């Protein structure tokens, strides 16, 4: 108990975030397992949404590392998701005979997706992060588009001889029994579903673990120092490019892992799924949840992924309601009157709690 009291405010928030994710996972698992047969609380649509929600939560966490912790704007985060999705799916299909266990294969695919996204992150980061200003936003914006076009022209096939790649034109001559994995603009025609809600939950926990432990270490402090004041950070001997790259590449790797998780939960996949709109959607999650606030990102990503589905009844008014909700949330979280009201409320609650404690102390 004493250690809990001595903990800093950040580590308390971090543990609360872990706790929130675990509790929500447990509740949803219970609801899903018990009541679904009786047609209860969790509708099949919602159940189908669980894996994409997990993927978007990891995406939001990953982008929050770039935008909230490092303080650089990335407008092409869906590009990393795309790289992870396609490389991960190809890996999962190719490893079908090597790793028979679906769980281990999913893990391998996620790792491979993350590795490919890491490479993409390094390739972009090294030249761009040396520059100050908004160049990262511009370059990542272009990166998202380039990746989309590249994958739309990529052909990958597999037969007994192994993997075959082709670009622009499909000239792959597959041996008997071979099949195309990625088919140019048609994307991936069939995917064996490997992702599960549990896998998604584990990936969220892993992402939180990496982000919290990174921000709470020497490297993380250097990254946040760059965000707060670059000139001062340089003056205390912090290597700007190194730490910018570290945060950005970690973020790209997490996005790649999220992409693999997402792809392996779908039936089919096309590159245009990961376009500019997806990047902006993830940015909306981050901004709405609060920059640098991980629990905010989780809630925002989950809520905004469910919302369009939940509003299906009002099909015609869906996007309208969505937009109004967004505007309302933004207004409420930024309204000074409301803010001061909430902070005074919090102070009152804290005050009464302290009073109660003081009384308890006297009683002893």
């Amino acid at each position, binding site marked *: 108990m004493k250690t809990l009291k001595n903990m800093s405010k950040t580590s308390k928030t971090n543990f609360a975030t872990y706790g929130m994710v675990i509790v929500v996972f447990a509740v949803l698992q219970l609801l899903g397992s018990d009541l679904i047969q009786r047609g209860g609380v969790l509708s099949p649509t919602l159940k189908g949404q669980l894996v994409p929600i997990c993927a978007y939560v990891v995406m939001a966490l990953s982008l929050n590392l770039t935008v909230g912790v490092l303080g650089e704007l990335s407008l092409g985060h869906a590009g990393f998701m795309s790289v992870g999705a396609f490389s991960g799916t190809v890996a999962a299909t190719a490893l079908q005979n090597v790793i028979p266990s679906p769980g281990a294969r999913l893990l391998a695919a996620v790792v491979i997706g993350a590795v490919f996204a890491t490479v993409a992150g390094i390739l972009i980061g090294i030249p761009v992060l040396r520059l100050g200003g908004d160049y990262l936003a511009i370059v990542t914006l272009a990166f998202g588009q380039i990746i989309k076009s590249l994958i739309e022209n990529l052909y990958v096939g597999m037969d007994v001889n192994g993997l075959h790649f082709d670009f622009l034109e499909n000239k792959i001559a597959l041996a008997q029994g071979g099949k195309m994995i990625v088919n140019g603009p048609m994307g991936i025609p069939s995917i064996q579903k490997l992702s599960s809600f549990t896998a998604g939950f584990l990936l969220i926990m892993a992402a939180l673990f990496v982000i919290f432990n990174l921000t709470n270490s*020497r490297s993380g402090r250097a990254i946040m120092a760059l965000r707060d004041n670059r000139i001062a950070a*340089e003056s205390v*001997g912090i290597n700007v490019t190194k730490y910018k790259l570290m945060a950005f590449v970690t973020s790209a790797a997490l996005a790649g892992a999220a992409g693999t998780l997402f792809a392996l939960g779908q039936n089919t996949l096309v590159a245009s799924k990961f376009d500019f709109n997806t990047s902006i959607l993830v940015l909306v999650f981050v901004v709405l949840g609060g920059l640098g606030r991980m629990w905010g990102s989780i809630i925002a990503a989950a809520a905004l992924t469910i919302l369009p589905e939940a509003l299906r009844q009002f099909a015609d008014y869906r996007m309208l309601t969505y937009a109004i909700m967004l505007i309302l949330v933004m207004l409420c979280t930024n309204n000074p009157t409301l803010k001061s009201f909430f902070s005074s409320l919090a102070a009152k609650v804290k005050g009464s709690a302290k009073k109660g404690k003081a009384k308890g102390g006297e009683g002893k």
Partner: protein
Amino acid sequence: MSERVKREPTRLVPVPSTNIIPERDVDKTPILECRHLGIDFGGLTAVNNFDMAIGRTEIAGLIGPNGAGKTTVFNLLTKVYQPTRGTILLDGVDTHGKTTVQVNRMGIARTFQNIRLFSNLSVEDNVKIGLHNQINYGMWQGVFRMPGYWKQEKIAHERAMELLSIFDMEAMADAKAGSLPYGAQRRLEIVRALATNPSLLLLDEPAAGMNPSETAELMDNIVKIRDTFGIAVLLIEHDMSLVMGICEGICVLNFGQIIAKGTPDEIKNDPEVIKAYLGSRKEG
């Protein structure tokens, strides 16, 4: 004019013409030596022919009217700007071509005129960021919380608290740096600079916005820092009570040129300095 001055080998004894070094530091290599330092911004010469040497444990002052180029000198020393001409020797080593980060690792730490703290981070984290190069575990050790992390974080915490105790700021360790009162922010900047383990500390208007009693306390603390850490301090300040009170050597800058150099008493009575600060009486 703009071509680089040929570098001479370092001399162990300071150049007599630039000598404002206190007696105890004579015969030791100066910690900082500037020779013919200058920078042009386009056609404007901001600093020219800046010669100065600072002893190993000296408290030196850099004063002058507004716009004289004092902060520019700091920016040249810390390589925020690369000098157009001249040489900077730090402990006898030429800093030509070095970056701000490298110069910091070589031993120059600074504070800023307009406070530049990491305002969203806690006071303790600000100091720990200053300790960045004193601890050396890598990213993976941090992410997976390996033994190196715990060991070095413990050292960093202890060292940060020790440094904060110079200004009696341990109680504020968990506060957000941006929420501190102005005077405390200035003090925290000094602590953060000290955390980088410098051999020369550059203070840019440390007493700005402080009341007389705070200034007096700051003076004591600067002397205390010099004595405990055995480092040199170069400070820019407009508060003459502070400059005359603690500086052993003073350099006066006006329009980018050194107009006087010497002990506080010499500076007080220097006609050039009086003219620069108060203006000359119009004749006839």
